[in-house]
């Protein structure tokens, strides 16, 4: 879809006026030879292929491993801008963990009438099996990725809270590594906050949540992957490697003497923390999906007994469900007593008759999302849809209005990419990564910037032609 400029560009205010955070970079860039930069760009791609940072696109031939395109122009955020985002993210993630604890215990927020009870009870993301369960360390969402978009100098919105198994952090780390190798001079010249502590912090926050009754001297951490055919397998292997954790599949795990243990060359070794990169439904065929080959039979019983830490906890999906998204400002206020620092995108709940009527009337202007969808699938971008698509979607919407929410089409900010003709603005979003320990929240400065490489496009998903950029947060 195309938008009509002007949108907010994060680098250029006008042809010859550069926004502050970009001024050093722009100085450097203007003196660079475009040919050299294009060469660097090709180098980066070869580098990514060689180390195998590829992903598999679902439904494609397994041999067809794709690269997520990488753009060499960084996205730059000032320290003041970041400080505010950080406060907002911190508040949001604290509220989400408090909400999860409440919703799986006394459900005060429902009693107070702040959220309709049926939104929880009839939601597939709500796991009744988690009622009354106390996760080790009291943390539900150990790892979160909060998707942010920007529309103006001070206008940031949270588009989505990813608190199940957010992915993309390996790209954040490898993008930085690539930039450091290609443009060391920029890192000498500018003060850019490092991101490299992430794997160490991840290991630490996972270890800090290990069960207290562990037989191991030091917490044993494992990353649970669905296997090498999963689209994010590279990231699973990468994180296990960087953390010095084991990379396991469910077939490596069994319940032994009431604990989860992995099959090693010397027998079974108890595991304390599992950073699982499989969905709830595939966690335990005994307790959830009996068809699943991916799970560990009985793992939920071990979990309920407090003998294993699962990160993220089962059932966290209720907090980032799109049907609940519009209640986030209330949730934040309810648990923190503060107003939300980061704004929500205005949202129409199609389950409500008035909203539905409005949405149907303005379908061609809105973005309509399925409440359980992800990855940009099952979504209507009104301004980009043709008549047939609109009328097809209208039928779906009328049939099951409660399955949908609608939002205005936001004029996402742009950051330039290196295109054939030089710098060219493209729409971006931002996914900062958050780690939650029992007493601490760590937010890595920056995160993953996703960029829609097609001119005018607003869809940044890698499965639909999006790329990534390195994200720089400037030091004070």
């Amino acid at each position: 879809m195309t938008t009509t400029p002007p949108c907010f560009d994060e680098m250029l205010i006008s042809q010859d006026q550069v926004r502050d955070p970009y001024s050093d970079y722009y100085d450097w860039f203007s003196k660079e030879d475009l040919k050299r930069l294009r060469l660097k760009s090709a180098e980066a791609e070869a580098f990514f292929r060689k180390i195998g940072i590829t992903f598999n696109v679902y439904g494609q031939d397994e041999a067809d491993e794709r690269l997520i395109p990488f753009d060499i122009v960084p996205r730059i955020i000032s320290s003041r801008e970041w400080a505010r985002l950080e406060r907002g993210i911190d508040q949001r993630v604290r509220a989400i963990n408090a909400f999860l604890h409440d919703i799986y215990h006394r459900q005060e927020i429902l009693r107070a009438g702040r959220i309709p009870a049926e939104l929880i009870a009839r939601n597939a993301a709500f796991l009744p099996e988690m009622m009354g369960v106390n996760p080790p360390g009291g943390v539900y969402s150990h790892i979160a990725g909060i998707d942010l978009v920007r529309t103006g100098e001070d206008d940031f919105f949270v588009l989505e809270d990813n608190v199940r198994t957010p992915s993309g952090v390996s790209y954040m780390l490898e993008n930085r590594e690539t930039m450091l190798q290609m443009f060391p001079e920029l890192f000498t010249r500018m003060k850019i906050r490092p991101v490299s502590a992430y794997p160490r912090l991840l290991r630490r926050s996972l270890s800090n949540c290990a069960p207290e009754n562990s037989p191991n001297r030091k917490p044993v951490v494992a990353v649970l992957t669905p296997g090498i055919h999963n689209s994010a397998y590279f990231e699973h292997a990468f994180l296990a490697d960087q953390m010095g954790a084991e990379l396991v599949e469910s077939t490596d795990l069994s319940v032994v003497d009431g604990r989860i243990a992995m099959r090693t060359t010397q027998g079974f070794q108890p595991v304390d923390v599992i950073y699982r990169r499989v969905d709830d439904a595939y966690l335990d065929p005994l307790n959830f999906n009996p068809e699943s080959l991916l799970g560990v039979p009985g793992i939920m019983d071990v979990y309920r007994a407090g003998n294993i830490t699962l990160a993220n906890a089962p059932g966290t999906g209720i907090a980032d469900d799109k049907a609940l998204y519009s209640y986030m400002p209330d949730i934040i206020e309810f648990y923190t007593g503060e107003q939300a620092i980061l704004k929500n995108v205005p949202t129409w709940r199609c389950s409500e008759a008035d909203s539905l009527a409005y949405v149907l009337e303005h379908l061609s202007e809105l973005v309509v999302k399925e409440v359980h969808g992800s990855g940009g699938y099952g979504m209507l971008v009104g301004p980009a849809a043709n008549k047939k698509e609109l009328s097809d979607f209208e039928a779906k919407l009328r049939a099951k209005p409660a399955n949908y929410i609608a939002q205005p089409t936001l004029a996402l900010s742009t950051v330039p990419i290196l295109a054939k003709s030089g710098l060219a603005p493209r729409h971006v979003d931002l996914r900062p990564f958050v780690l939650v320990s029992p007493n601490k929240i760590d937010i890595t400065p920056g995160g993953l910037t996703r960029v829609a490489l097609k001119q005018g496009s607003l869809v940044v998903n890698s499965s639909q032609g999006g790329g990534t950029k390195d994200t720089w947060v400037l030091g004070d």
Partner: protein
Amino acid sequence: MMLGKTAGGLFWMFRYLERAENTARLLEAGWHMALNRSSTASNEWQSVVTTAGVLNAYNQKHDEFSASRVIDFLLRDKDNPSSVMNSIDLARSNARQVRTALSSEVWEATNECWMILKQELARPVAERNLHDLLSTIRYRTSVVRGALYGTMLRNDIFAFSRLGTFLERADNTARILDVKYYLLLPSASFVGSSIDNVQWEVILHSVSAQRSYRWLHGGDISAQGIVDFLVFDRRMPRSLAFCAAETVRYLEQLEQEYGTRQESQILAERMSERMSQNTIESVFQNGLHEFLAEFIADTTQLAKHIEQDFSFYG
């Protein structure tokens, strides 16, 4: 501490790399021979396919043995489970599986080997490019080996990698000898004149040992000499005795590291002892084919035991 699956992945990764290399070498020998021959070489191409252990799969697809068909089948046919491309594919997918156990150099060398061969083997290889391609295979697999030697810890990871290599290699050398055993019978060498020099070259060439054989034995090429060299000579890195001794060595290393002696180690020691107690004379007396068949069966058995002893699979 290592996952059983990881041990299995390393073992198979290096088995498949060794297999790819051996297949390439076998092809090179066959090719060399075909070029040095005036009459039809179809019998020889058949023996190349037999040695590669894929005769059944080949026969299901083709009804004659020609250079271009055999070359394509061994290099890139998807229906040939041991084709170079399939082996490299499997080596890499095992490497991906065990990525966290590999140094980044080893992983990158494996991944690059795969990327290059995938491109080179996307289409049938023209005869004029065969030589270069075979060198590429040998070169790229050597880079992986070099990275393994230069960058990996000498612990259980290394031991399982090497066990895969030596079991595959032992099996390969034994099969080469077994397919050619009729040429190596004493009766043939007594007849003397009937020995085809090209054939000897093929055997030595397919284990990359022409030069080392000549270094040790001068121009004196005999059946006994070759069998002795490829079976019993512990200086020769592809001989059965060498592979058996290395297998014992790495199983001993695992015993030390893990503090447990496993069934597989006893088996390997028995195999290796049989090597040092046997002589070339007794082998010829009791039948070379029988000897080799037993050795191949023992290797298969040993691989099974290693799988069980170290819990490769559930």
